[in-house]
């Protein structure tokens, strides 16, 4: 994604402040510190070098030591008074403070001392802008995964393998040994992103579906080629099913919740949503949960398999009432 002018401006100003306090710093260190490429740092320096106060004569410009520059070291020699750290904008302070407080709402980090001190200091740094953050809350799912989370965190920290007894969305129990890579939450559920030795690939596991978590003594091998997940939504590249649902207006949240869903408005508030589905069991659960808010499912074989499951359940309820103790 192309960087905005605002993002680049903020970094260039930050560079002046940073370089003022760090003479002769290698370009590579600056790049690592700000999380950008060395090429980007050099581009920023070139722009800074021709910037300054109106007139733009040599004495008006921000200046660097040329000798150092040739050795790929950066030394600022004239900051034109711009070496002071720019305060946080009100929305910037809110964005970071709410994010920190959300992290604190995660069971694993509820009493994390570093988070507490970071929030205190950020409030001090933000000044009055911090107040607006108090009006915003993020609720992180408080499902009972605390013990599993603690075990998986320690496995991650120590680089150990883990044995999982896991129940899938289609209610199948399996046992597998995995190399944990990342713990991820979307504030509703927790996921473990791990290399699964049974599947011989990366898989995502929901913590609330883990029946047993055993941290093993064996070291987890490194997986340098695996890119960590940016999001908790399943990868759709492996989707085998393309499904169309006709939903009542009440079920708008389905379109909102699953990114990439194509929506067509129908008459009287009904709408159609098209989804790429990796796992049919997931779709069954979604459609059955929606109940009367679904009026049609395509393709038809998917619709009838869902209907079969619903009928079987209704039959089981009927049988249950029939075998009652005569009280009903």
């Amino acid at each position, binding site marked *: 994604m192309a960087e905005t002018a605002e993002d680049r401006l903020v970094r260039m100003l930050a560079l002046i402040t940073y370089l003022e306090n760090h003479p002769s710093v290698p370009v590579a260190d600056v790049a690592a510190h700000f999380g950008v490429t060395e090429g980007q740092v050099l581009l920023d320096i070139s722009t800074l070098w021709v910037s300054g106060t*109106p007139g733009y004569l040599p004495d008006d410009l921000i200046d660097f030591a040329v000798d150092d520059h040739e050795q790929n070291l950066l030394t600022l020699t004239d900051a034109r008074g711009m070496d002071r750290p720019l305060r*946080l904008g009100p*929305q910037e302070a809110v964005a970071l403070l709410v994010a*920190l407080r959300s992290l604190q709402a995660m069971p694993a980090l509820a009493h994390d001392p570093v988070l507490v001190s970071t929030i205190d200091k950020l409030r001090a740094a933000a000044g009055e802008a911090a107040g607006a953050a108090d009006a915003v809350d*993020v609720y*992180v799912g408080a499902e009972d995964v605390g013990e599993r989370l603690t075990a998986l965190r320690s496995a991650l920290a120590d680089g150990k393998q883990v044995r999982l007894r896991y129940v899938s969305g289609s209610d199948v129990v399996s046992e597998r040994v995995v190399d944990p890579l990342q713990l991820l939450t979307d504030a*509703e559920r927790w996921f473990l992103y791990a290399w699964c030795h049974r599947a011989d690939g990366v898989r995502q596991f929901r913590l609330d579906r883990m029946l047993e978590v055993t941290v093993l003594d064996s070291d987890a091998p490194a997986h340098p080629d695996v890119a960590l997940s940016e999001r908790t939504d399943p990868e759709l590249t492996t989707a085998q099913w393309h499904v169309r649902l006709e939903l009542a207006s009440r079920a708008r*949240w389905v379109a*909102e919740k699953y990114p990439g869903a194509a929506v067509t408005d129908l008459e009287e508030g009904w709408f159609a949503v098209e989804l790429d589905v990796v796992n049919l069991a997931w779709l069954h659960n979604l459609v059955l949960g929606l109940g009367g808010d679904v009026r049609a499912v395509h393709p038809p074989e998917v619709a009838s398999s869902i209907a079969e499951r619903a009928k079987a359940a209704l039959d089981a309820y009927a049988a249950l009432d029939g075998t009652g103790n005569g009280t009903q």
Partner: protein
Amino acid sequence: MSERVEPAERLLDLVIALANTPHRMTKSQIRRGVNGYADAKNDAAFDRMFERDKEALRTLGVPIVTLTDAAHEDDIGYRIDTDSYDMPPVAFTPAEVGALSLAAEVWQDSTLSAQSRRALTKVRAVSELEDAALHAGLALRVRGPDANFGALLDAIADRITVRFTYRAANTGRTKQRTVEPWRLYAKDRGWYLVGHDVDRAAEREFRMSRIVGRVSRIGEPGTVQVPDRASAHREAPIIRATLALRPERASALRARAVEIESPTAGAGSAQSSPPAQVPRPSDRDVIAVDISDLDLFAEELVGYGDAVLVLDPPRLREAVLARLRPAASLGGES
């Protein structure tokens, strides 16, 4: 120079000029003097460019003040208030910068994501290299709020009433709502506004994604009374659900059970719950699970089909049946 000046470079030169000007700079001085503004083809183009830049800088926290000359009142001048430019001196430890960079990754797909990354850059300017080890491997990803988040947050801070068009969840119809905004929150991947609905004279919650178009402000700032958080927060009561499970099925539910009774594993286990009048199927295991949201739990249970049946409470059972009945006719041949 015939080459156009990049916006980031023009903004940088504007900041340096306005921070270094001894008194103030008028618009015409800026247009003539500051690198990049000569690119504007005419007066209107210059005005648009300058207004946009000024607004962008204020959003970034750059304190631009307006000064009028006593002799020429139309002649507005600008400079940066260097006293309020600085971030207060705060020393973040490497571990704390690590926590901030974890926080900057929280937001997805929203302006909050860009804003938190910019805030992190500003903190890094006065910090040593971060130590990310402490929270390695942990990540929180929250879908960022919708377009009106900033406007609503500003309205809350200014304690001013807002008005917007809202699409009702159950009918899909849109209606104008007038609300005294109190708080915003994210839950289950959605963003909500909590406030006092003026027309209904009651507290209401609004899903922000159902707000159609923009939020506008009504009345005067400083008029909204935000109630105490403690009184506004409600805890959902815990409901105990009794379920009949097919043997060896629904392991995820079994893992959450507070009580398990297995008729197939010997009849000796005496239980006080479920209520005695509920029929007890002899071929199923009976478990009890504590839940807080009945409808959400019903949605989850339906997915198990005939492997999980609700024995109690009747309300949960009815919620499950109400979903099964229409689903049973989905095949079309009913």
